[in-house]
C-alpha cells in the first residue's frame, strides 16, 4: 500500500502548481482551471491527512467541496461567457477599465 504521506506531498505539489498557473496564465479559463486544481488538491489533502479514525468525516467534507466547486464553476463560466460576448476575447489584459 502507498503510505498516505505521499498523497499529501502530491496534494502540496498540485496546490503549488495551481498557484503558479493562476499567476502566470493570462486567460480567464486557464486561471479558473488553476483554481479548480487547487480545490482538488485540498480534497486530496483532506483524504491523505484524515487518518483511519476520521476517514469518514473527510469523505463527507470532500463531497461538500466538490459541490462548492461545481457551484463556482456554474457561476464562473457564466461570467466568463458574459465577458466573452462583450469583448470577443477572454485575455485578462483587456480587463482594465478601472484604475487607481
Amino acid at each position, binding site marked *: 500500500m502507498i503510505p498516505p504521506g505521499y498523497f499529501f506531498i502530491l*496534494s502540496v505539489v498540485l496546490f503549488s502548481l495551481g498557484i503558479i498557473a493562476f499567476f502566470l496564465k493570462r486567460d480567464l479559463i486557464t486561471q*479558473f482551471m488553476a483554481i479548480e486544481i*487547487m480545490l482538488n488538491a*485540498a480534497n486530496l*489533502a483532506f483524504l491523505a*491527512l484524515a487518518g483511519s479514525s476520521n476517514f469518514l468525516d473527510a469523505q463527507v467534507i470532500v463531497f461538500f467541496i466538490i459541490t*462548492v466547486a461545481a457551484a463556482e464553476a456554474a457561476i464562473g463560466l*457564466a461570467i466568463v461567457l458574459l465577458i466573452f460576448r462583450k469583448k470577443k476575447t477572454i485575455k485578462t489584459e483587456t480587463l482594465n*477599465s478601472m484604475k*487607481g
Partner: protein
Amino acid sequence: MNSFGATVPLLLIVGGALLVFLLEAFLKKENKNYLAYVSLFALIGCGILSAKAWNAGRSYFDGMLRLDNPALFLTFLFLIAVAFVILIGMKYISMQDANHGEFYGLLLLALSGLMIMVSSTNLIVIFLGLEVLSVSSYALAGLKRKDDKSSESAIKYFLMGSFASAFLVFGMAILFGTAQTLDISGLIAFFKTGPDNQVLSLVGFGLVLVGLAFKIAIVPFHMWAPDVYEGAPTPVTAFFSVGPKAAGFAVLIRLLAPYWNAGFGSAKLFAFLWALAALTTLVGSLIALRQKNIKRMLAYSSIANGGYMLIAVLAGDGTALLFFLTTYVFMSIGAFGSLIALTGNGREYNELEDFAGIGFKYPWIGAIFAVFLLSLAGFPPTGGFLAKFYVFVGAVRQGLTSLVLIAVLASLISVYYYLRIVVYMYMREPEREVSIELENPALYLVLFLSLYGVLQLGIFPGNVLYLIKQAVSALF
C-alpha cells in the same frame, strides 16, 4: 425546539429567495416592486423567529449550528443591512435597467450565507456559508449586464474570491489532518496542548487566516476590492462593504480571541496580524487620498475601516468590534445611499466634480451625506467617533499602544479625504450639469433611519451597548 425547528428562520430566507425567483417570471414589469415586499416580509419573519432564541444560547445538529447571542445579534444586524439595501435598490434597479428578481433573490441567498457563517463554530460549515455568500455575491456584482465595468468587477471578484477559497480549504485540510477536528473549541484545545506537527499546523492555520483576509480585504490581500466596489451596482457595493466584512470579522474573533491567550505559536501570528492591521489602516487611508471617484474612495475607506476592526480582533475586544460593526452598517449604507440619491435615469454621478455645489442645489441630500462622511471620519457626536474610541481604548488596555498610534494617524489622514467631499459640496460652484431623480421615498426612509442610527449610537449608545454586552458574554 428540535434541530430542524432551529433552521426555520434560515429556511424562511432561502424560501423567500426561491419565491422571488419564481415570481420574477410571472410578474409584469410595472409590478416588480412586489418582489421587494416579499423579500422584506421574509426578513421580518426571520427577525421575529430569531428574536425568540435570544439568551437561550442552544446549539443544534451536534454543535454544527449554534444560535448563541453573538450569532443572533449579527443576524439582526444583517437583516437590517439587507432590508436597507433592498430599499435603496428598488428605484435604482429600474433606473439602471437591471433585473429586479435577481437582485432581491440573490441578496436573500447571500444573507442566508452570512447567517450560516456567523451561527456555526465548525470551520467546514463556516466555509459552506462563506461560499453561499460568495457565489451569490459574484452574480450580484455583475448585475448590470450591459455595463462593462459591472461585468469586469464580477469576473475580478470571482477569480480572486475563489482563489482565496482554495487557500481557505487547503488550510482547513492541513488543520484537519493535524488536529483531527475542525470545531473551533477543539482546535483551540489542540493548540493549547502544543501540537505534534507544530510547523504544519501553523501553516494550515496561517492559510485559513490568509483566505479569510482576502475575503475581508485586509492589505496586502485587498487588490480586488476597489475594482469590485467601483464596478458593482451601488446598492450591491453598499452590501459588500458591510455584509461579508462583518461576517468575516465575526469568524475571526471567534477563532482568534481564545487563541491569543494560550495557543501554541500565537505570538508569531499575533505579530503577523499586527503588521497587517497597521498596513491596512495606513494603506487604505493613503490611497484613498488620491481617488477622484467617490465609490472607489469609499472602497478604500472601507479597507481602512477593516483595519480598525482588525485592531479590535487583536485586542480580543468583542464589545468594541460589535459596536464598530453596528455603527459601520449605518454609516456605510447611509453614505452609499446618499450616492444613490444622486442618480438619474440610466446615469450615475460618482466623480468628485459631480458633487461641486450639490450642498446648495439639493440641501437635504447634501446635509445628510455630510453627516455620514463626518461619522466615517470619526467626529463627535456621531456613532463613528464612539466606535473608533471604544476600539482604541480597548486596544490600549491590551497594551497595543503603538498600533493605536498608527491607527489614529491613519484616521487623521482619512479626515482629509472625507472632508474634501464636504468642501466640494458646499464651497464650489457647480461645474457639471447633474440631473437626478428626486422621487424615491424608500431611499429617503433608509437615509433617515441611518441618520437616526448614527446619531443614536453617537449620543445615546446605552441600549445597543447593553445588547452587545449580552451578546459578547456568550462569545467565549
